[in-house]
């Protein structure tokens, strides 16, 4: 049993699921707050506001996917090297997902505010919000590619 490997691997798992979850939660609250404000002005935009405000959930979901992918490797006999790979994946993906979800929430909040003010910006907001999310997906790709290093 290599306790350092377990610690590194555990940290990696915690970071990939935890940071992405925290980011998504903050992003969802930011966008959700904006949606509530906008709905006071224009209740008829509930559908678009619901779709937009739910988008920052993506990073948390990717974090969950990353966790599912890596979780089988966290065993009692994990090596330090494998634990290190998991930690690297956790840091690489977790930080990107955290920042991307928070910023995505802010972008969506701006879009939802504009919707509330009567501007028809649902489609542009949806497209623009996909840009910061792309980097969370790339973070997930990095994590998946790093998995191939595990021996």
């Amino acid at each position, binding site marked *: 049993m290599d306790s350092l490997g377990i610690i590194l691997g555990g940290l990696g798992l915690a970071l990939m699921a935890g940071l992405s979850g925290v980011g998504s939660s903050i992003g969802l609250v930011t966008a959700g707050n904006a949606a509530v404000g906008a709905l006071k002005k224009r209740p008829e935009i509930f559908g678009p506001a619901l*779709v937009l405000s739910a988008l920052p959930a993506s990073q948390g979901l990717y974090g969950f996917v990353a966790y599912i992918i890596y979780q089988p490797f966290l065993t009692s006999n994990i090596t330090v090297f494998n634990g290190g790979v998991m930690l690297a994946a956790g840091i690489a993906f977790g930080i990107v997902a955290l920042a991307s979800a928070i910023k995505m929430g802010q972008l969506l909040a701006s879009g939802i505010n504009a919707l509330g003010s009567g501007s028809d910006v649902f489609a542009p907001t949806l497209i623009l919000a996909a840009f910061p999310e*792309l980097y969370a997906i790339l973070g997930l790709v990095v994590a998946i590619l790093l998995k191939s290093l595990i021996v």
Partner: protein
Amino acid sequence: MIQKMKKLSLLVHANDRSQVLEDLQRLGVVHVEFGKDQQRLEILVFKEKITKLEKTHQFLTTLAASEKTVFHQETYPDDLDVLYDEIEKMRVEVDDLRSQGVHLAKELESQNVWGFYDAQKAEALNAAGIKLRFGKAPAKLFEALDPQEPFVEVAKDGSSVLYVYLQDSKKESAELPGQEIFLSAGSDQLQQKLLDIDAEIKKREKFLLGYCRYIDGLSDGIADLKDRLSYSFANYSLTETAGGQVLILQGWYPEVEEARVREFLDSSRAAYLLEEPKGEEQPPIALKNGRLARLFEPITKVYSLPNYHEIDTTAFLAPFFALFVGLCLADVGYGTLMLAVTIPAFFLLKGEGRRLAGLGIVLSVMTIAGGLLLGDIFGIETFKEGVPNQLYPSLLRPLALFPTMADAMALPILLGFVQVFLGHILRMVNGFRRDGVQGGLKPIGTALLVITVGFLLLEYNFFGPFAKVMVGPIPVGPLVSSIPYVSTVTIVLGVLGAVLVLLFNGVEHHLKFYIRPAMGLWELYEFISQILGDILSYLRLFALGLAGGLLAESFNSIGIMVLGNGHNPLMWVFLIVVLLIGHGINLGLALIASFVHPVRLTFVEFYKAIGFKGGGVSYSPFQTQLKSNNH
């Protein structure tokens, strides 16, 4: 599918203006191209009136529904504006009374701490020489007071003391320690006031209920106003020419209505021209889909209607959307519960509600299908070892084609590739329709590049050993690896795709041939940087499905813990309660996520592949609503 439209140009003599417009409105099939002159006072007044009356109508309808009584309908004798004013006045009064009531109730509640305060007795005491004064002081300050002084502690409020000071009426009023509190009236008086207010509110509510007999009349009045508003729109959209003697009106009508339109035109005194839409023109959009695809039209409309020169995406997004929802929920039990709600709703509801219930039935069936494919019933998974046949019926086990975690993860990726590829094919069709052969070549290039990316990911063992990659029973790896010279084929497809993108991008913008390669490089960069992200985005379906399944399983575990050894019959009741609440919460949360994320995949990944532009204006014929209401 988008209904074919034809353009109508109408030349009307100024004298026939109103007659032709009235006839056109009665015909009810022409979508008039409204002019920019839509801010006229007359139009603004109509709009304001409609808004006001719709508000009143909504109020009365809700009131009538809350009473659960059928009101005999009558025609309102005066102008509907009077009705609005009367109802508004009454509503304002009711709101005012309610806020007074809330204020009084709060006052009474805060006064109750002193017990029942009888203002008359207090007055009698005052006359007898004792004036009651009320106060609130911090406990320390109160304790420090001279015990000889007539302070009487009534109650404690946190760290403060509420007290009564018995003052000699003849003496001059001294300042009380802490804060003096003035009671405005006796408790009985406050209670009486509250009762009076309640009676006043009830009186006015009874009056308001009386107005429910005008709901139908109000509907007709609103419809009439809308007719007059659209008439005004049309009227101000007429363009004057020949010194105001001749007026021109332009509009669109569905080609299927051509016979009716021609009959009307031939019998009218107006000259006309009927044309096919030209390249840059944007006729209004009337969707015409089959019964099943029509259920998904509200989803298409959430983003935007397609423009006239694009393909209607509804029929193409529908199967994917339904499948995605099915994979997100993926539970036979949940799907059955949803069916139990949506089927009765479909038969009980009418209009839009019935359509939504129809959509609900389709999504419920897909949830059952998803549950069967992934092997999940109320969170009980077929692939888990030791799950007895009683819990997961052995009859259904062969249907669980994607039961393992790896299968469930690979399936959304495969679906992502298929949907994105289909998107590029639709883009090609759009390009061919709009710009001829050249317009469709770049999307062919990007479609080839999608295949190339898929092959490359397989060849570089991104999903595991190439020749062994299976998505459930679908032999993706063996199929691709069996292609002769697959590596060469991949390179050829990639090069061909890149060349097509480099040479035939920007055809829709009429880019010069020699500029295209430079712009094509940018397009290639965009494609390469985004395609992997687009495909991996579909993994959210797996994550949502798994999260829902794990939560359901957790509630099952809690239920089993509650049940214990099962000897206590009461525990079975608790088990049912835990399962009902737990699965209820899980299904509610999963339903929201299962709608939002498939919508996102459709509008971002799929629409990006299609190059969807949208911006279509809904076909809204110039017609009389009042007439159609009466029908």
